[in-house]
């Protein structure tokens, strides 16, 4: 009983926390994002297992978390509203070479992030070569380049 409650509360808490911290925090772009994820993983492990290190407890926890994940994915399938609420929606941040400053500020993304994605994904050199840049739901930035002559 205890392990189910722990699993449920930590899962729900993390869900809410990551919604509050914004899409970028899951992007794992910088070294620090990665370190933060490691530390959070360590912290939650302690909270979930307590001082019960038996195999049974560990397996029960895994069952609980996977169960919650499956349950949630089923709910999201049935309710697009819930899906939007939990996962968010993509956001257009650059249109025809012009960065949409207000949105980028609110989403806490800067032009350097966009250019880094442009170089990595499309091998682009300049902002003008970008037709659309989208901040995806998982925090990654995707780039659509301008066709020649556009």
């Amino acid at each position: 009983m205890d392990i189910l409650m722990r699993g449920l509360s930590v899962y729900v808490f993390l869900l809410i926390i990551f919604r509050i911290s914004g899409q970028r925090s899951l992007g794992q772009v910088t070294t620090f994002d990665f370190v933060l994820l490691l530390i959070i993983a360590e912290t939650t492990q302690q909270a979930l297992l307590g001082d019960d290190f038996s195999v049974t407890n560990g397996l029960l926890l895994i069952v609980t978390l996977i169960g919650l994940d499956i349950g949630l994915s089923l709910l999201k399938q049935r309710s697009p509203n819930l899906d939007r609420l939990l996962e968010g929606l993509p956001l257009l941040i650059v249109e025809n070479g012009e960065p949409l400053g207000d949105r980028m500020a609110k989403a806490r993304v800067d032009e350097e992030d966009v250019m880094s994605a442009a170089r990595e994904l499309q091998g682009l050199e300049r902002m003008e070569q970008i037709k659309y840049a989208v901040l995806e739901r998982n925090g990654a930035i995707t780039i659509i380049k301008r066709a020649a002559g556009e």
Partner: protein
Amino acid sequence: MDGLGMADNLRFHHRNWIFERVGWVVLGSIALAALFGLFGPGVLGPTLAVTPTGSLSVEYPHFARMQSPLSLRIRFASAPGQRHARLRVDHRYIEGISVEHVTPEPDSVQLDAGGLTYRFALGGAAGENLITFRIEADRPGRVRGRIGLIDADGTTEVGLDQFFYP
């Protein structure tokens, strides 16, 4: 949008950003509350001391977390020539927490229906004595109990009231 098969969704994003910012305020308040001892012995958390006539005082945190050791500091005065002190902890408190360690070690611990009576040897000089109970709760919830000093005239007691977060 020309070519991009995706709606702009700006209304959703605005509401989302408001939700985020409200969330930051909540996070900030949680951190602040923790700092001030709401979730257990914190950086600035004042530890609640219970003093009756002043002959016995118990210093303990009102809010604490389960499975996290904490200390009860019990202070009392002894008369010159007094060789023993008896401390009584009622069974309600004993059931709620587990005693990890008692400093100094008691001479004896006597069990009866009402609780435990700890007997400590004293040096004999007059003055204030300090006994520290290192305790831990293994269940969340509220724990109430009484700790008393037994002397020739009777028992002087104080009540304890703690809440352990899960």
